[in-house]
């Protein structure tokens, strides 16, 4: 099994785990973590795609790597915003759950 296949499968597992916990767990913090898990899987897939592009004789396809950096920044900002909202919700109400979700 080539390394590309291994990493591809890893990314699929990460996305699957993330999707599962995003849907199953009602707590917002878990959902935020699950989102990051899916994000990890997607970014790994970017790496796989960059490596596969390398089969064309290049050392590696640089475009997906550039995309990953942007994607990481966006995912980081999203996580920060979500955690900030959650913290504020906790300060205001003393709980960190969304009622009708639970």
């Amino acid at each position, binding site marked *: 099994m080539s390394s590309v296949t291994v990493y591809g499968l890893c990314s699929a597992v990460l996305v699957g785990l993330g999707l599962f916990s995003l849907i199953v767990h009602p707590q917002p913090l878990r959902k935020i973590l699950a989102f990051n898990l899916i994000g990890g899987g997607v970014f790994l897939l970017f790496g*796989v*795609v960059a490596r596969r592009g390398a089969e064309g004789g290049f050392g590696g396809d640089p475009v997906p790597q550039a*995309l990953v950096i942007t*994607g990481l920044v*966006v995912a980081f*900002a999203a996580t920060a915003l979500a955690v900030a*909202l959650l913290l*504020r919700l906790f300060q*205001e109400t003393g709980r960190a759950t*969304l009622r009708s979700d639970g």
Partner: protein
Amino acid sequence: MPNSTTAGGFLLVLAIVLPVVGVLLSLALGGRHAERVALILMPAGLAVAVAIAAGVWRTDNVLQYFVGGWDPPLGVAFRADGLSAAMILTAALLICGIGLFARTQFPSPQEVETRAPLVFWTLLLAVWGALNAVFIGGDLFNLYVALELLTFAAVPLVCLDGRPETLAAALRYLLFALLGSILYLLGAVLLYGAYGTLDIVLLSGRIHPAPVAWVAISLMTTGLLAKAALYPFHLWLPPAHAGAPAPASAILSGLVVKAPFFLVVRLWFDVMPRMPERAAAQVLGILGAAAILFGSVVALRQMRLKLLIAYSTVAQIGYLFLMFPLAVRPETGNPWSTVAWTGGVLQAISHAFAKAAMFMAAGLIAEALGHDRISGLAGIGRALPITVFAFGLGGLSLMGLPPSGGFVAKAMLLTAAVAAGQWWWAVVVLTGGLLAGGYVFLVLARALSDSSEPLTLLSTISPSRQAVVVVLALCAVLLGFVPLRPLELLQIGRPATVVVGFR
């Protein structure tokens, strides 16, 4: 399709750069100047939008700009076709109207610096820039970034007043949006892995029916549906849109949910014009029909005016997705495809104006009464006749009564449904119209009835704010008077294979 930057391509850059400059200036100058910065930039942004629309109309072709002079697939393209131009113009008009309306609600602080005005005016400009970036993006990854910018600008607008329930609504909105964006990104990387480009035009030439394309498009569509709040992903929308301050609700309901819809249209009709399966399109149509029926029935049962309008948004989003079963695969003998497509887009535009006007009218009513319980509206028609008139005009478009933009849009969808032999969509359109008539009438009947005791208004509403609301509602109605020729603007730049029997 031109293969280099066209004359007037710089206008596309301006459409993004102007609002972003405004955001930076507001942050640097602080809350005391944020309102002024926004009000100065609005006419400039509107002028750019008009210039883009005029440029597309005059040259009868897309405006295009390659960032840094690099051609795709390495570079990133901005493209404005007729659809983009129409959406940019709609967004500019609405943002200007909402800005004028919001001046009294978020005035510049005189003595002590307060946070709400700074945040509102900055985010208003940020939403505008992000919307323009979505409308002219020619690269699927760039569109992902634009969508995320839009989400980050829209979510804080929900919880401007900081009440716990709006914080919860904003968090739920953000969680749905994050799921949507990560699914979209997963689809985009799969497409890049399979075809080596993310540029929409290049991709449309390379993509062909294969499992990877199906999976990628399904993931991206599902993600966008979560962001567009199509049934059954609508759970976040009513609390978020109803809890936000009135001008913010108008932006969210009128414009922000249209951006993911716009991208679904891009994906299905521009990225893969030859690919969509009838069966997949039927699924979108069924979800749309469910949204219309569910949203309208739940709207009928609401006690609060803003929640009623928010559930009506859920229903009206459903109409947008009725265009898919009626408009895909024109080459397999569906000559009414273009009519359905145009109807769907026109519904998006007229709903934007109508819903913004209705949310702002509801905001004025709540400001005057101190509450927005529908049962307590008696007598408001006498106290705020212009506002209630504007609400009614907006409702006209939602019901699809002539003359209004909503009427033309729904008539086009109806015609296409009957002509294509898919009569069941026609039944849904008509039922949805009746139900919309029900909930609009429910509000108007209460508002126009005489109250038993004299009404005490908490505050007087200035005529200028009521005028803004009426003008936006009139825009929704005037769209119904637009003869068919300007609708050709929407067809400019569409792949020739999918435009049938219209021009």
